[in-house]
């Protein structure tokens, strides 16, 4: 079925558009295969609204049949469109039939299943070409650039045809002394074939963060020699490593009943296992739904708001993610041990924790390029199933399948880190907001599909543009930069006290006046810094911003609160 066949009514005149911060507008509404357009025709070439149909999470229609005249002048309908970027707008459409047609077109076209029908495959802006490399970096390039890996680590292409692990990229970094055969055996012992691979090697002490999925020990405590050897090779003999299991000890035990499990102390004697409970899947999705619901009603009393905020548990997830990331950093940076992170599948919380830990540890991941590379490496290439997780956002009435806003949670955590270290990140909140939008609906192919394998099969790299490349080319837009950026080599240990964590107003209250005032403040920050640059001239700009950079200190030992098994 052609996409255009879904469009029963392409144009409606005299539609009234209502949205936050703008006066109501009257104009023409158009539905195309991928967009909803609205124009008041004052200026032929421009439109007032252009939204990707994929961005639409839910639509609600109410048809009024005024004066009881069927199909007559008096009938009209209102469509409420709720977008995945949390924007809510209303269209008043004259004519009941037109209204219903528009609604059903939007419903059909906003939930396309086939990847190749999606807009990134049709997006052809004149300033971008499809030739040339796709993405910012590959595993091989990362390895080449990271000299500290060369000694003990190698790139393995054992997964080049994606047969060992369908969700891994074709190349992964593993200990040099472990050959591909062992990797294959270890992969068989891990859920989804996600054997332990290197995620990060710390520049200070060479300690590493590994990630994987759970071992398939099952009820009768199976073991896998190769898997044990692989982990042994990671810690190189006598040292100690930590396994951060993102499930409670009880959950990990229960997982054995369904074939999963954990690394038992007797077989992995040099690894100390620490359990930290993280919610996953549906529970996190429901948190998002509840939070957005709470934010959307400004008439609540303060008590009700606080209890809804608490009830959503969203900030609790932020809290756990940051504390576990802090724990990983503590193991690596302070105690000088390597860490293996996994939960069950190793595609969600595992990536969340490992990438946050890198942000805290590694100054390189706090630049714009470094951060986007981190996302590419740890989320896109590492096989976070974006298509499944981001099929719907907070408004959808559709039955939840595999949706889970774990990537939003990451962005929220990064935002919290920025709030606490406003000088330490090169990028701004605007970049995080842009990513939060792009991950749900995008012109670019970056967040399509669930894995490298799927992207290959669909021809994503050949037929779409890469968001990260486009963000960085030729120069990153000023709004995505932090004017106060002051690089620091130190780890930036965030406070995880509830008093220190805040609701991300920029995202969740984005379409309220509350967020508008913050926009003004941001502009003021820029103008202060620019004025300074003008006065100081180019050669003096850099050293001055550093005058107030406080040094950073770790403040609490997270190890205190742990269950160490």
């Amino acid at each position: 079925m052609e996409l255009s066949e879904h469009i029963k009514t392409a144009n409606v005149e005299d539609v009234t558009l209502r949205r936050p911060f703008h006066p109501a507008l009257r104009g023409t509404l158009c539905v195309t295969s991928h967009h909803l357009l609205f124009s008041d025709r004052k200026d032929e070439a421009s439109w007032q609204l252009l939204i990707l149909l994929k961005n639409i999470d839910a639509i609600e229609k109410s048809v009024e049949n005024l004066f009881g005249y069927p199909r007559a002048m008096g009938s009209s309908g209102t469509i409420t469109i709720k977008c995945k970027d949390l924007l809510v707008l209303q269209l008043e459409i004259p004519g009941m039939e037109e209204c219903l047609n528009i609604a059903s077109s939007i419903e059909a076209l906003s939930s396309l299943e086939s990847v190749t029908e999606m807009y990134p495959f049709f997006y052809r802006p004149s300033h971008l070409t499809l030739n040339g490399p796709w993405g910012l970096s590959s595993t091989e390039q990362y390895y080449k650039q990271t000299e500290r890996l060369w000694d003990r680590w190698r790139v393995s292409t054992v997964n080049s045809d994606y047969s060992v692990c369908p969700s891994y990229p074709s190349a992964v970094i593993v200990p040099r002394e472990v050959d591909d055969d062992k990797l294959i055996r270890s992969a068989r012992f891990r859920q989804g074939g996600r054997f332990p691979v290197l995620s990060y090697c710390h520049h200070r002490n060479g300690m590493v963060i590994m990630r994987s999925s759970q071992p398939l020990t099952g009820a009768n405590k199976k073991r896998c020699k190769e898997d044990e050897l692989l982990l042994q090779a990671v810690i190189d003999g006598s040292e100690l490593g930590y396994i951060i299991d993102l499930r409670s000890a009880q959950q990990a035990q229960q997982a054995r009943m369904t074939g999963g499990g954990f690394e038992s102390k007797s077989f992995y004697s040099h690894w100390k296992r620490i359990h930290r409970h993280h919610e996953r899947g549906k529970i996190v999705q429901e948190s998002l739904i509840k939070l957005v619901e709470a934010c959307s009603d400004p008439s609540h009393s303060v008590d009700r708001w606080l209890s809804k905020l608490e009830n959503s548990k969203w900030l609790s997830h932020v809290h756990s993610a940051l504390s576990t990331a802090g724990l990983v950093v503590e193991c690596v940076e302070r105690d000088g041990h390597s860490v293996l992170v996994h939960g069950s599948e190793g595609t969600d919380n595992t990536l969340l924790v490992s990438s946050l830990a890198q942000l805290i540890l590694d100054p390189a991941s706090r630049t714009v390029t470094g951060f986007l590379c981190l996302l590419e490496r740890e989320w896109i290439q590492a096989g976070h199933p974006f298509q499944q997780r981001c099929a719907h956002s907070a408004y959808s009435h559709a039955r939840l399948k595999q949706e889970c806003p774990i990537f939003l949670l990451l962005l929220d955590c990064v935002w919290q880190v920025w709030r606490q270290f406003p000088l330490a990140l090169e990028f701004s909140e605007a970049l995080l907001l842009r990513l939060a939008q792009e991950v749900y609906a995008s012109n670019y192919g970056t967040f399509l599909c669930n894995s490298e394998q799927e992207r290959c099969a669909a021809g994503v790299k050949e037929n779409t543009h890469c968001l990260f490349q486009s963000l960085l080319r030729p120069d990153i837009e000023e709004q995505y930069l932090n004017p106060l950026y002051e690089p620091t080599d130190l780890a930036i240990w965030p406070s995880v006290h509830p008093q220190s964590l805040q609701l991300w107003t920029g995202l969740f209250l984005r379409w309220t006046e509350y967020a508008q005032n913050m926009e003004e403040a941001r502009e003021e920050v820029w103008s202060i810094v620019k004025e300074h640059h003008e006065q100081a001239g180019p050669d003096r700009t850099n050293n001055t911003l550093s005058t107030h950079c406080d040094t950073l200190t770790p403040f609490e030992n997270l190890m205190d609160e742990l269950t160490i098994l």
Partner: protein
Amino acid sequence: MEHIRMPKVENVRLVDRSSSRRIKVGTLYLTATHTIFVGKGSEDRCELWVLHSLVCNVVKHKASQSGYPLLIHCKNFQVMQFIISQESDCHNVYISLSRLSRPEKYEELYCFSFNPNVDKAEREHSWDFLDLKAEYSRMGLPNKLWHVTPINREYRVCDTYPADLFVPQSVTLPVIIGSSKFRSRGRFPTLSYYCKENHATICRSSQPLSGFSARCLEDEQMLQAIMKSNPGSRFMYVVDTRPKLNAMANRAAGKGYENEDNYCNIKFQFIGIENIHVMRNSQQKLIEVSALRSPSMGEFLMGLENSDWLRHIKSIMEAGIFISKAVAEEGVNVLVHCSDGWDRTAQVCSVASVLLDPYYRTLKGLMVLIEKDWVSFGHKFSHRCGHLDGEAKEVSPVIDQFLDCLWQLMEQFPCYFEYNEKFLINIHNHIYSCHYGNFICNSQKERKDLCIKEKTHSIWPHLWENKLDFMNPLFKPDQSQNQGLLRPRTAPYCFKYWRRLYNRFDRELHPRQSELDCLMTVKEETQQLEEDLALCEQVEHQIFNYHPHKSKQALWSLPLDTSLANTPQDYIGGFIGGAPNVFTLQQGERESAELCLFGDKPKSSDADNSDQESGVADFSSHSSGEESLPSEDSVKDPDSDETGPNRA
């Protein structure tokens, strides 16, 4: 001195609240004015000074293995835990501190013994820093509608009101006296704020003694005159800030509220702000939440909700918004009262004023506003802040709530306030510290009787002198002027927990880097560069064309307030010498809860903490807000600067 049973205890341990493993051993001294802890050892030698007047309560805990714990809670939300090895020592300290922290007479308060090295003229000058007369004339008063009545010059009509009060020109003395007799404590309706653009005013009073049916002709005439003083309006609002139920209950006691039938053209409105007892309990719960040690997110949010604190803040804010809109948008006069007209009325009038008038969003403006609506109109600081040992039921965080409202506004409008939250926190600290005379006593009359101006110093010049620390770099003065009325959102998510105040001393909870401090530095430097440039040009100019006046001009253009330039603020000495005789080193002001380093290595005392604050950090006990320690470059800091108390 007779209350000090134990001037010195050795081997006392100071426990860091955030981590019980961080312990400092040292000596505890009790002086007439301060509790002082001096850490032992060259590595982590540090001092902690706590003013007795800041101590809220002292609690003995059950003995532990290591000794006898003594917990000291302060009014600025600092909490300290000492462990004393001998039970008798602990008990003696406890008894002494319990007495010292509850002075029975005003004369025992620190402000009477605080004696910076300034002469009499200068001290008197400090009290002239703010002039309420000038403030009223800034508003455009007196004019043909409003004038000052001399009726209360001797405080005979109302002993809790200031001497100078503005009333409508048309009101006669008998009307004022009649009205005052019909109002609780004689607090008749009088002007608080005048909007010169449209002549609308905010007036304030206490509740009328109306009971179930009483009337007072003069009071009705008074309101009529107020209404008529605004030529553009046909009616006026009477806002009772109490919950309706409370107001009705008052009727049984012969008090109550205005009957719309008896007063011409009034619109009567209840705004349910709870009373001082509810607020006290609410803050108590809030403090408990803020002091939880590593709570879960859920525990914290539930605790915050159960405290109801933010709900109360919202109700005060909404009352302020109602009044500011009535004045600015409708151009209608508003009379505000609660029961006595010195708590909720002060909150609501001052919040409305801040919303209405950009001036109150400047440093000086806020000082004036507090001096006018709170100090002069008889907010009972001594009772509400518990300066003296007395009725616990009189204590209530009424002014804390006003400062909290201001903070909420600053969060919503980051570019519209000249001051930053440090300014609010400093004011908060000094309201409770009894370090300066401004917030002593319950009324102007009491202050006059006690000769406060003759015997103590005023806080405002001190704050003004350090204004660079209190400036908000994002402040856009032009826009703020144009902005006029602030229209804050009151959606529930606009009300937030003020971590900087309630967890002020829990250093690890706050951001490690400050965007605003950084911006301030950037701004100052830009300004410096501009000045350098201007100076360069000037010098060039002078070389060719010598001009004596101009060079003088250049000197004056330096950002110095000449009237204050002489106040001694020589803080550096205390910190550069490593001498232990710090007690006698400085004659500078002695601040409230002081913590200062006198070791010669202020930057390297803790291996774990490589930052400047480290020595202090471990105590989590800055006396003064977030500011850094008095290291060489923080001389400007108003609170961590002073040293050397009298060890009389």
